């Protein structure tokens, strides 16, 4: 397995946020994790990224133990719900930021940034400042900035949470395209049922710090805890003639 999380726990004061959680994920696949606010999804991602320290348990990426490694050494990029574009840099500057940190030659940065701008369908926007972009464009730049650094693992924390329905749908498609092109391995956290089903190759449900991973999507659909059944019943009730 490419990513393995074993018996991971984390408490803040007396609150147990992540409770002996284990998961595994193959390379170039996306695991979507469905969970309500406060179930520990963000803490789990931050533990994997190295932004929080686990109380116990271990994280392995490609056979390498991550505890003791700094976030920069892990090569795991964490994407927030907000796009967090650097307001003092242009679109080009934002996308190439990670490469600049890695001291890649400027000519190479320019080449890779141009290619990424094309793939993100942002042609002609390269010299704009973040505040001149729409919400969807900003989120695309944020994706490009993360993917261009070729991370081993991408952690997405409800990245489309602030977008409208249409933009959200387009971004979901774009992410799947980019994931296929760049062979991305990712954890995709969301509280949106439909998004969880659409985005993940594998799917899990997180509740009170524990994660249940389903062997296939059929299992997920049939489990009453996921809310899929009640969602279907709701839409069916709308179609009934006596409604």
């Amino acid at each position: 397995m490419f990513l393995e999380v074993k018996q991971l726990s984390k408490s803040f004061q007396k609150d147990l946020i992540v409770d002996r959680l284990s998961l595994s994920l193959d390379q170039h696949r996306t695991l979507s994790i469905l969970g309500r606010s406060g179930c520990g999804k963000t803490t789990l991602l931050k533990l994997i990224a190295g932004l929080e320290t686990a109380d116990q348990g271990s994280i392995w990426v490609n056979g390498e133990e991550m505890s003791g490694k700094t976030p920069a050494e892990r090569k795991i990029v964490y994407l927030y719900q907000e796009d967090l574009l650097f307001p003092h840099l242009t679109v080009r500057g934002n996308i190439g930021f990670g490469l600049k940190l890695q001291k890649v030659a400027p000519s190479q940065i320019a080449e890779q940034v141009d290619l990424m701008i094309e793939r993100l369908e942002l042609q002609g926007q390269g010299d704009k400042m973040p505040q001149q972009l729409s919400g969807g464009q900003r989120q695309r730049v944020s994706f490009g900035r993360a993917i261009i650094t070729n991370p081993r693992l991408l952690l997405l924390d409800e990245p489309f949470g602030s977008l409208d329905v249409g933009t959200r749908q387009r971004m979901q498609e774009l992410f799947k395209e980019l994931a296929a092109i760049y062979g991305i391995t990712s954890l995709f956290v969301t509280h949106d049922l439909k998004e969880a089903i659409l985005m993940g190759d594998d799917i899990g449900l997180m509740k009170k710090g524990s994660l249940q991973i389903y062997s296939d999507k059929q299992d997920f659909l049939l489990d009453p805890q996921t809310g899929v059944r009640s969602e279907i019943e709701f839409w069916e009730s709308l179609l009934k003639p006596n409604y």
Partner: protein
Amino acid sequence: MSNIKRLALFFLGLGILFPFAYLAFLSFSGAWFFPEVLPGYFGLKNWKEILSTESDMGFSFFSSLGISLLVATLGTGTGFIWSKSIAYHAQKESWLVLAYFPYMLSPVVLAACLNFFFLKSGLSGTWQGVVLGQYLVAFPYSVIFFQAFWNHRTRQFEQLVLTLGGSSNQAFVQVLLPLAKGMILVCFFQTFLISWFEYGLTALIGVGKVQTLTVKVFLYIKEANFYYGAIACCLLVWPPVILLYLNKRFVYNRLV
């Protein structure tokens, strides 16, 4: 805009500008005795005298400028760095209460409390002592000022840089400093003013040997030399006015 509003604005503007204009007028005046409405002399005599015979006025001006620039640079720089540690510290509230301490006491009382240590360390009556004394007031101001910068969003920016492969230093130089640029300039301006207009603490620690422009103004007023006092006031007032203009023109307008 109605005529009444225009008139009200005119008088408001006049009220603000009058003290500056009057100071300038007074600095060019001489032999102005009660009950004369206008001075007996109006010209450059006072300014010429001060620039030729009272050459320490120029020295006071440049001493004040040097001390204020140093205090503002040190206060803003170290305040910015320390404010981060305090903002993310578990005992943040206690540290901030300490930062308010010089203002609760008032700077001059703080100076009186610390005077013994300044005397013992040989810093009393030196410009280094005055810089240190004023720094003890400017630094906490800067720490309090930057608390607003170290918020949840700033922390997310910093963490993002780390996961993109950057070090803490790279995050500081390439992201945090550019993000804080506007606030740093405003803080520099404010701490410069704190130092520039500081009198009580400077007089106490400088013991008359460090004669900043503010000390000079009070000296002339005590001597009842209004004309020289007005010149010192002009020199005291105009640098902050220029800084205020630059701040408004290049910093504030970009922040809003």
